[in-house]
């Protein structure tokens, strides 16, 4: 029976983290040198953690599947990073960032974690400035801010529309420094395929060298997963094509609990899908909603070009439904509102999958140049993809899977239910509850990597009893055997369908039944369709080439095989949660006006799923106690 101990320090919220840091045991500098930590993934969380652990004196082995750590998908985050600096003196504070994040997450996250996140947010900005990140500045030389979806203060720091890129390159440069110092060994083009467990502790990983195809074991004293989210289970998403669930899913199968998998964020402002060959959805930064207005024609099936539709016949539906927040309503709410008008046949563009995002008013007020300076690169991107110029005609946008709040369960110290397995960044579930606010993912990734994990992992390493092991240990060999047999199984099917065709099919099932809105009937039918599809995959997939070679199709097929199992877990979670909260909207639980109905009496808990071979996953619950804030109806009206 799995025990969930969140290890949240008792006592006042404001001092929980300080007290935890003081009570933690430290590892002496001499001993740090003898300790190896594995970090998997080099996005914001992984790169910042690997660098900081190296600086502390640990030996770090760092892995990524990309050809360089700088290519991790954090690079694509556009809008910005939140911090409670209150430089604008507009009423911001740690408490307000905390409250906005808890409320934005629809009261499905832990108070203690979120408060700590808000506390360290200010340090992140200072650290990033010290690393040379060229944040936008005011004329006087001070840091500039903008406001971002779901909040009423300006607390977002940014580097044009490339904040994720700059923050990642900052963390990457810190990582480069530690590689040069000999503290971090970097292993790019290496994919984690399994976890090595010894005496119930995480002691290493099995990886495949993506160039030679060789499968090998790396052992360590602790393992940190910073492997990102799983939006690609939907096939079409805003994530990079390489982003995948394999590392966290494999860890789940070794006993790490998975929390709230059904909390998947659908971002409102992506470029609408085009034809069947489309491989990804491109995000248009949420910052566009600061100045752009969303609308559709009032009349259904109105196919006039936008400029021929007079103002009186337009429905600015976010401003109408949520007058207080208008176009800045949080992502889940905006996405559902877009879906609702499209379901009424008022969508625009091919197939009716789209709404207008219109800049005409701000261009009229502030001039073309100002708008161009603010969003130039996004307008260029839009034009390249669609062939249309957003300065002269409104953009068309449609929601797309973007971020996953769910992930491996971790305690306050970011350790999973497996001792020695730590999970940071998007890969864990901890801070965003049922919905993430804009510009908070960069904050969380860097908070975990720079400022939280390096403290908490020390306590584990100082107190855990760890026997010495190597690649020849029985458990290492067993893990290696699991991986090699799976690789050869994939290669030996030699069927007639490509892995992509299965991926597309499972993605469509999830998008239709476990996407922006869900219901019992659809989820139950999906839970019967997925095993059949998985069975066909293992009977009929075609993976050409060899195992001991550079083989991109083999990499991909392995990831698809995991999606075909993981998709079921997602549906189980969505089915269990008989309420609507945040990004999880169950059609059975809504008000007459179509607003979600949360059920705190039955579902104020984290749903924590345990793997059990041969049966359905087992549900455990971590109750969410709200000592410091009162859960309210999350209204943005």
């Amino acid at each position, binding site marked *: 029976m799995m025990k969930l101990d969140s290890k949240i320090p008792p006592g006042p919220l404001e001092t929980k983290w300080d007290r935890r840091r003081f009570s933690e045991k430290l590892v002496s500098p001499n001993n740090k040198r003898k300790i190896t930590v594995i970090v998997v993934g080099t996005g914001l969380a992984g790169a910042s953690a690997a660098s900081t652990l190296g600086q502390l004196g640990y030996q770090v082995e760092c892995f990524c599947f990309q050809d360089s750590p700088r290519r991790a*998908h954090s690079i694509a985050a556009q809008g910005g990073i939140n911090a409670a600096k209150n430089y604008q003196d507009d009423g911001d504070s740690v408490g307000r960032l905390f409250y906005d994040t808890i409320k934005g997450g629809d009261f499905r996250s832990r108070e203690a974690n979120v408060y700590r996140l808000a506390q360290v947010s200010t340090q992140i900005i200072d650290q990033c400035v010290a690393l040379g990140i060229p944040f936008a500045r005011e004329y006087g030389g001070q840091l500039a801010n903008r406001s971002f979806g779901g909040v009423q203060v300006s607390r977002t720091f940014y580097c044009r529309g490339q904040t994720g890129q700059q923050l990642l390159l900052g963390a990457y*440069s810190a990582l480069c420094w530690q590689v040069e110092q000999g503290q971090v060994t970097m292993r790019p083009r290496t994919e984690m395929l399994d976890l090595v467990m010894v005496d119930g502790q995480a002691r290493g990983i099995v990886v495949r060298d993506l160039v030679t195809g060789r499968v090998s074991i790396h052992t360590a004293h602790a393992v940190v997963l910073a492997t990102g989210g799983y939006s690609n289970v939907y096939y079409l998403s805003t994530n990079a094509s390489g982003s995948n669930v394999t590392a966290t899913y494999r860890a789940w199968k070794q006993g790490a609990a998975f929390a709230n998998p059904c909390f998947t964020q659908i971002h409102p402002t992506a470029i609408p899908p085009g034809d069947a060959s489309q491989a990804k959805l491109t995000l248009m930064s949420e910052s566009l909603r600061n100045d752009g207005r969303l609308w559709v024609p009032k009349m259904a099936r109105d196919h006039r070009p936008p400029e021929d539709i007079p103002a009186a016949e337009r429905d600015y539906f976010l401003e109408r439904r949520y007058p207080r927040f208008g176009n800045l309503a949080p992502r889940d709410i905006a996405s559902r509102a877009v879906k609702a008008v499209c379901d009424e046949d008022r969508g625009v563009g091919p197939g009716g999958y789209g709404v207008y995002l219109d800049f005409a008013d701000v261009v009229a007020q502030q001039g073309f140049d100002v708008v161009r300076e603010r969003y130039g690169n996004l307008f260029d991107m839009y034009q390249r993809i669609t062939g249309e110029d957003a300065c002269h005609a409104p953009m068309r946008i449609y929601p797309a899977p973007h971020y996953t709040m769910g992930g491996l369960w971790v305690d306050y110290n970011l350790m999973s239910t497996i001792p020695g397995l730590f999970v940071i960044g998007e890969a864990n579930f901890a801070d965003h509850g049922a919905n993430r606010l804009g510009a908070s993912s960069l904050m969380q990734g860097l908070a975990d990597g720079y400022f939280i994990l390096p403290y908490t992992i020390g306590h584990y390493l100082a107190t855990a009893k760890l026997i010495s092991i190597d690649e020849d240990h029985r458990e290492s060999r067993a893990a290696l055997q699991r991986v090699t047999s799976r690789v050869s199984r994939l290669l030996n099917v030699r069927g007639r369908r490509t892995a992509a065709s299965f991926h597309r099919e499972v993605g469509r099932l999830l998008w239709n039944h476990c996407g922006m809105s869900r219901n019992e009937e659809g989820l139950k039918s999906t839970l019967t369709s997925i095993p059949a599809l998985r069975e066909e995959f293992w009977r009929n997939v075609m993976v050409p080439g060899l195992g001991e070679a550079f083989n991109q199709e083999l990499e991909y097929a392995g990831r698809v095989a995991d999606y075909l199992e993981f998709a079921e877990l997602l549906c189980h979670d969505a089915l269990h949660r008989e309420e609507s909260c945040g990004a999880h909207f169950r059609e059975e639980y809504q008000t007459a006006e179509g607003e979600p109905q949360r059920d705190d009496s039955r579902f104020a808990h984290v749903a924590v799923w345990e793997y059990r071979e041969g049966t359905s996953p087992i549900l455990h619950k971590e109750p969410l106690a709200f000592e410091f804030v009162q859960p309210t109806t999350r209204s943005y009206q």
Partner: protein
Amino acid sequence: MKFTLNIWRQKGPDERGRLVTYEARDVSSGMSFLEMLDSVNQGLIAKGEEPVAFEQDCREGICGSCSLVINGIPHGPDRGITTCQLYMRRFPDGAVITIEPWRARAFPIIKDLVVDRRALDRIMQAGGYISVHTGGAVDGNVLLISKDQAETAMDAAACIGCGACVAACKNASPALFVGAKVSHLALLPQGKPERTSRVKAMLEAVDREGFGSCGNQNECEAVCPKRISVRFIATLNREYLWSGVVESGLPAEPESPHAESA
């Protein structure tokens, strides 16, 4: 639309490669170049043949993975974009398109269109950073940085490390890549303390990795997907010159009259 593709196929680093011709059929004009290659690959896989290996990841022009030389030009015919941002509407129906990998001695071919660009990481590891420990940084607003200075640093920092500059250069010089990083950090006060050691260490790494020297012909700027300006190569040269001045023992700053007594 329909296209004839001449694609570089090479089994491994030590094998001989050659151009192989494929037909791409039923291509729609709204398809991206990489989606067009995806569809060719799906056809090959369904026949049990090995698909064409090529790099891609974010497909929105920021990760720097994609790296194709299209009709002789890195990232294809349009300026200021990566391969993944190129759409088939850019080509006339029936066109013949030649697709090759980045070619440079420092970028050995791994397979087909995939090359090993770790040399760029090693240049960065030699000095492309500011050595600051996590924690203890001063408040971000303590360092005032003018808007223009921050914007210019950002122009340089926008480099995505794809290596197109190297692929376009007949000398296979990474001067634009190195110049962008050296300029970004030299322009900011935070980067000043390591200014001289950084530029030297990075340029030594360039030589070690087998890259060539800059010939000032600016092909790099022409193909750079982020339109990084060659004036950052000029900055790189100035920084290098300056590091030599400092090393030769000339005073970096006018000497303080109190230096002796201090």
